[in-house]
């Protein structure tokens, strides 16, 4: 990267803009330039340079007038699951075709309200169903990281793979993501970035393409814990248009970054020590516990006995809700249409041509588990298992645990195509540490904490009490601080793409 403006943290960029060391237009131009050179990463599905420059100009005039918002002039990428008014929104699927929403999602509208600049729409797995960005109808986004000495392309994680790749490659200062089973935290871990899934209900889901409505939640990606805290403050908040959004004040999350973790009780769940976990993941996890101890926290082993049932229950709940949500893609009101002899055949042809194999598979599983005679055996049972998973966490928190420390993923980023086996379950296992958090509705943050033997980033996850994102930000910052990776630029991938 030739321009150092791309390497700024979001917090430093805000400071530089306020001091008029550079303009919002210059900052946006630096990112548009980097995006142009990084098209091989396939992180952006749509670039919006004209809109970006127009928004940046407005920011410059607001800064000049002393009317700057909390994100004034900050260039961001937006996952293609968020409806953006007049800007093509595909959810990574062919079935939405050239859909241009006549409305803006609540979360993104709050970012623009606070002065942020839209650089473009970021690639993701089709309808956010995937853990590698390989199910996107527009081809996979590519991880800017490569194993040491290798030129093999790796996945950036998924489903928010465009977001994680763009943030890691300095193609934006931050990005939005959505997380249904790990889709923010797993890609953050694979790219050495920070990502938080807030408590269910913290951010409005209005205007986000629906996947599994009882699990979906929006959250930010950035390169530091503080930057994600700044972004979440703008994204969160009550929205009358989403009845599941919570009417609670939004705290100044960034103020929690740097707060002492002395006296906090951190739980290490023994059930997360899964079979076949690579020694380097286990080692990093224990290292994280040591760092928190050194910072004054108390680390205790805890038990979350229903952990192993979370992933199978998820693969009932998520497909069931998806099959219902995706019924709207029928070729009538928007998106693709493939003709048929009658209206049913038109639906069937449209959906066969428009949905990719993973989405089709999940719709069929969901349809099956919701079909007559199976509803109780599958869906109701899985919802009961959710009660047990949530109870495990409730009991840990009631016993005085402030946050739970786990690895984010069972491995570092893997090669594109390497999991294209016949068994879809192999890919699902990527979410083994993250999916419990969605099932229980809790907040979870992924923070980079080290590197694998081949030099690829690895992350740790912290899980918090409902609506206690502040504790997560302070503990994650303690990990970030102890890992000491930011100052030494150890979280910057070597540029091979431009």
């Amino acid at each position, binding site marked *: 990267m030739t321009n150092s403006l791309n390497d700024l943290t979001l917090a430093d960029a805000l400071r530089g803009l306020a001091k008029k060391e550079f303009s919002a237009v210059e900052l946006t131009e630096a990112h548009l330039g980097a995006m142009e050179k990084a098209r091989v990463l396939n992180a952006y599905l749509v670039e919006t340079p004209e809109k970006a420059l127009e928004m940046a100009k407005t920011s410059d005039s607001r800064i000049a007038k002393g009317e700057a918002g909390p994100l004034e002039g900050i260039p961001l990428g937006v996952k293609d699951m968020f409806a953006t008014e007049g800007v093509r929104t595909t959810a990574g699927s062919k079935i939405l075709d*050239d859909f241009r929403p006549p409305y803006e999602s609540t979360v993104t509208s709050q970012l623009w309200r606070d002065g942020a600049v839209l650089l473009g729409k970021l690639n993701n797995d089709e309808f956010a169903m995937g853990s590698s960005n390989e199910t996107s109808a527009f081809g996979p986004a590519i991880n800017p990281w490569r194993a040491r000495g290798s030129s093999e392309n790796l996945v950036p994680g998924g489903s928010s793979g465009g977001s994680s790749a763009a943030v890691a490659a300095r193609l934006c200062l931050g990005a939005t993501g959505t997380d249904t089973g790990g889709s923010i935290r797993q890609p953050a871990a694979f790219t050495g970035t920070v990502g938080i899934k807030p408590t269910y209900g913290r951010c409005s889901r209005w205007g986000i393409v629906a996947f599994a409505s009882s699990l979906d939640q929006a959250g930010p990606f950035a390169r530091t814990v503080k930057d994600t805290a700044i972004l979440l403050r703008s994204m969160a908040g009550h929205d009358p248009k989403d009845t599941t959004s919570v009417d609670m004040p939004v705290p100044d999350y960034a103020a929690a970054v740097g707060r002492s973790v002395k006296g906090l009780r951190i739980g290490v769940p023994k059930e997360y020590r899964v079979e076949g976990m690579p020694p380097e993941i286990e080692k990093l996890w224990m290292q994280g516990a040591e760092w928190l101890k050194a910072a004054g926290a108390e680390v205790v082993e805890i038990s979350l006995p*229903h952990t192993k*049932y979370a992933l199978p229950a998820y693969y009932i709940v998520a497909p069931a809700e998806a099959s219902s949500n995706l019924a709207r893609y029928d070729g009538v009101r928007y998106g693709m249409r493939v003709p048929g002899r009658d209206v049913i055949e038109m639906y069937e042809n449209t959906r066969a041509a428009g949905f990719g194999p993973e989405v089709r598979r999940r719709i069929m599983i969901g349809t099956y588990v919701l079909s007559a005679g199976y509803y109780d055996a599958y869906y109701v049972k899985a919802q009961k298992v959710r009660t047990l998973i949530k109870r495990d966490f409730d009991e840990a928190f009631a016993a005085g645990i402030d946050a739970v420390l786990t690895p984010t993923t069972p491995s570092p980023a893997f090669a594109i195509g390497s999991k294209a086996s016949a068994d*879809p379950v192999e890919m699902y296992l990527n979410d083994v540490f993250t999916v419990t958090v969605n099932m229980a509705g809790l907040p979870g943050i992924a923070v980079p904490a080290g590197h694998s033997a081949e030099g690829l980033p690895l992350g740790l996850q912290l899980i918090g009490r409902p609506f206690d994102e502040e504790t997560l930000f302070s503990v994650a910052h303690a990990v970030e601080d102890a890992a000491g990776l930011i100052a030494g630029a150890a979280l910057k991938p070597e540029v091979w793409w431009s």
Partner: protein
Amino acid sequence: MAVDEATVRRVARLARIAVNPDEIPHLKEELNAILSFVEELSALDVSDVEPLTSVMPMKMKARQDGVTDGGDAERVLMNAPMREGDFYIVPKVVE
């Protein structure tokens, strides 16, 4: 529980997704892999557990039952794959 080919065809029909006959065996295999994975739950007795209905205990907000938006047919129809005036066009449904 495992599905057979007839069930795969029935589910595809319910889901309104056209499936080629030659895709059925492969789809059957994939669906059965997922179903055998979720079968792990059968080891768990949940007879005395209430299903989770909301992840956070909160009272559903009610709003005034009034019109807050709408009346803009052009914006509603702007993404229609086929339209005539202010109507969506679909293949004939009623003879």
